[in-house]
């Protein structure tokens, strides 16, 4: 009986340590994002990015929602993602391209970091995700399989 209580106590402490570790990883990310936003990094056009976006079937207007999802994740980035893509009046096919890309590849820093805490390899966790997202979105854009309506 005593042993069970002890092991639960240890689990509680381990859980708290995990919470602390994740916070130490995520808090600087949040600060970095807020700083970048406060100084208007996302509002300025990024040089050289338009051709890359075009390959993915996206217009320059899709950059902010793409970055928001890529770095922040669908949930935390959702506010920016949805409101900006409406503001920019992105056509439906671009919204679908965005959704396909971001569904496979979002919140990349945070997701990778928390599995690295458990000992995972960043290269193998992030590399294939990035490759798949770029590959599938570019393939869809090239084949024109993203329908004009819907």
């Amino acid at each position, binding site marked *: 009986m005593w042993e*069970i209580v002890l*092991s*639960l106590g240890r*689990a*509680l402490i*381990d*859980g*708290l340590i*995990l*919470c602390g570790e*994740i*916070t130490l990883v*995520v*808090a600087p990310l*949040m*600060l970095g*994002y*807020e*700083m970048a*936003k*406060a*100084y208007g990094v996302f509002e300025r056009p990024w040089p050289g990015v338009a051709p890359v976006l075009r390959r993915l079937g996206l217009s320059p207007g899709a950059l902010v929602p793409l970055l928001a999802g890529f770095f922040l994740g*669908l*949930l935390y980035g*959702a506010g920016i*993602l*949805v409101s900006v*893509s409406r503001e920019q009046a992105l056509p*439906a096919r671009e*919204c*679908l391209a*965005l*959704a*396909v890309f971001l*569904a*496979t*590849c979002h919140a990349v820093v945070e*997701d*990778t970091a*928390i*599995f690295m*805490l*458990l*000992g*995972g*390899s960043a290269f*193998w*966790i*992030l590399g*294939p*995700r990035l490759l*798949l997202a770029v590959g*599938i979105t570019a393939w869809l854009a090239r084949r024109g399989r993203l329908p004009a309506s*819907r």
Partner: protein
Amino acid sequence: MKTDARDIPAGGVPPWREALGHSGRRTRAFVWFLLKNILPLYLATEILKQSGLLAWLSGFLAPIMGLWGLPGEAAAVLSAGLLVNLYAATAVAAPLGLSWQQVSVLGLILGIAHSLVVEAAVVRELTQRAWSITLLRLGLGLGAGWLLSLIII
């Protein structure tokens, strides 16, 4: 003292100050979220482990999880990640003592496909094909994880 004109907007508060405040509030909310998500699951995993239930269940699932080079217990990690979120998955995975290869495979599968229920709601705001995209994530995640397990495990 010299100050950059850009540092002081009309409101009088410099942008970095505002950013600090914003991220402070977000971090505080995030810590609460973590405690509420991780501690109960960590305890539940420990209880499942101690009671022998986890070993019993994973006995059934071991052959399936073996396809990905994972132990049967990893099924609990996958369900937590797919249905709840990645923090839940880490809370379940941490006490299992998995190898870095196994953590990487789980990280890849769950990185691509996680929190499917909640995130489908966000995707629906972007496109009407939320269902297809959810299926795409599940398929891609399991497929990519399988390939990775062939390479590194």
